[in-house]
């Protein structure tokens, strides 16, 4: 049986290292998780923190044979203070990390998993940096891993909050003008879910879009376009537009969140009234 880690206090909250399994399974994958619980009014940051702040950074101290992947970031929230817009999480969040285990790892009674987490916890008023040393002890056992019941619901909820692949019926494209990106989705025929009533794009990469700018949505039964102002710090337009798109359907359906990863058309579209095709223009600014 694994030793459950006690939550380590951090500024205005607590942090604990958890696992979705009661043992480390050789030749298979399991998940570790950084479980943040924050006091009301305090937040941590997403992989792209937005205009200010910094995301948590983890350094793993793992036994040989454990290969950690990258953090699986749940859909972030948007925090706005005057003209400064940040992306992150308040209240509680589980940052999951998949770990691949070498098949050659021998069974053992207890293996020590450690993590050094550098973090920044902020309110609207101030930021407090910190560092937490976390540890978790688990046995290494052959065979299918047994779920950790205590934390199973945490992992289930976190899995649900991850952005999903967009529907296959959506044809997604991204174009650009001198000052904006335009993300377009064509459903082909009427979308089964109904018209989208609101949309918010969270860019994965810093300094691509102006985080504080409103995102203009033009929504119809068979398509929508979302206009994103370019960042003032963007000098070379990216080849790909990557991020998370949160859409609302207006009826009683819950919001859906999708992972967006589309190439950005190199050419500036020349817009003629009524034209549906984009002609290439001279160069990109």
């Amino acid at each position, binding site marked *: 049986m694994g030793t459950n880690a006690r939550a380590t206090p951090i500024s205005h909250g607590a942090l604990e290292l958890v696992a979705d399994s009661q043992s480390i399974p050789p030749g298979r994958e399991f998940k570790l998780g950084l479980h943040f619980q924050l006091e009301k009014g305090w937040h941590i940051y997403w992989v792209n923190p937005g*205009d*200010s*702040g*910094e995301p948590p950074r983890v350094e793993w101290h793992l036994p040989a044979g454990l290969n950690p992947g990258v953090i699986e970031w749940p859909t972030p929230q948007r925090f706005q*203070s*005057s*003209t*400064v817009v*940040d992306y992150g999480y308040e209240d509680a969040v589980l940052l999951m990390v998949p770990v691949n285990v070498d098949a050659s790892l021998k069974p053992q009674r207890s293996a020590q998993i450690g993590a050094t987490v*550098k973090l*920044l916890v*902020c309110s609207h*008023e*101030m*930021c*407090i*940096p910190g560092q937490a040393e976390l540890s978790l002890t688990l046995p290494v056992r052959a065979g299918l891993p047994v779920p950790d019941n205590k934390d199973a619901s945490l992992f289930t909820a976190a899995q649900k909050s991850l952005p999903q692949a967009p529907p296959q019926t959506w044809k997604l494209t991204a174009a650009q003008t001198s000052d904006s990106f335009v993300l377009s989705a064509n459903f082909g025929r009427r979308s089964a879910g109904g018209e989208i009533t609101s949309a918010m794009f969270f860019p994965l990469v*810093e*300094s691509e879009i102006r985080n504080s700018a409103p995102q203009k949505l033009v929504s119809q039964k068979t398509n929508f376009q979302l206009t994103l102002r370019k960042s*003032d*710090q*963007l*000098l070379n337009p990216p080849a790909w537009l990557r991020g998370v798109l949160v859409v609302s359907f207006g009826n009683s359906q819950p919001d859906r969140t999708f992972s967006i990863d589309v190439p950005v058309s190199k050419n500036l579209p020349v817009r003629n009234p009524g034209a549906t095709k984009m002609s290439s223009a001279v160069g990109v600014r």
Partner: protein
Amino acid sequence: MKRSNLFSILIALALCAVSAAAWAAKVGEPAPDFTGTASSGQTIHLSDYRGKYVVLEWHNNGCPFVGKHYKSGNMQRLEKEWTARGVVWLTIESSAPGKQGYVTANEENDYLAKLQASPTAALLDPTGAIGHLYDAKTSPHMFVVNPQGILIYDGAIDDKPTTDLDDVPGATNYVSLALEQAMAGKPVATAATRPYGCSVKYAESTH
């Protein structure tokens, strides 16, 4: 009229005026002119310094990212080095009254003396008018203007977006690089980066 009401109205007007302008500072374009009050009491215009390089440093004395550069003596060193070479260094506080980083003129002068910081001037911008004109997002957020009044750098002070003092010595300082390259007549290789730090504590918009 009560002083606090007048102040709120002034903030609202300033924000309305600034947000109405689609203009934000952009690298390669003229840096927006502004008028500010220094902690010395002097009135300062950016255009006063045409013919010189100007560094704008957004500041908040409570922010740990700013603290990294002052506790290590890094910012003081930069100010000394560059002002000695004829660069104008303006440290700017855009925190609203009551918010972290807000300082009165006396408090700012005491702070500068205590930390042995030597900017050309410290501008007090509690309405956030100058901050919004430049869309200053963080403290620190750095801008460099060339002698022709063109913005040649906008972004982070260096390439280590952390609060660790250990990260100061090995960091690539974008401000120094921009000044060195521009002074040598070369193009600025890294003209814009994501500024890192705490959010600027502006007054909340009333509209």
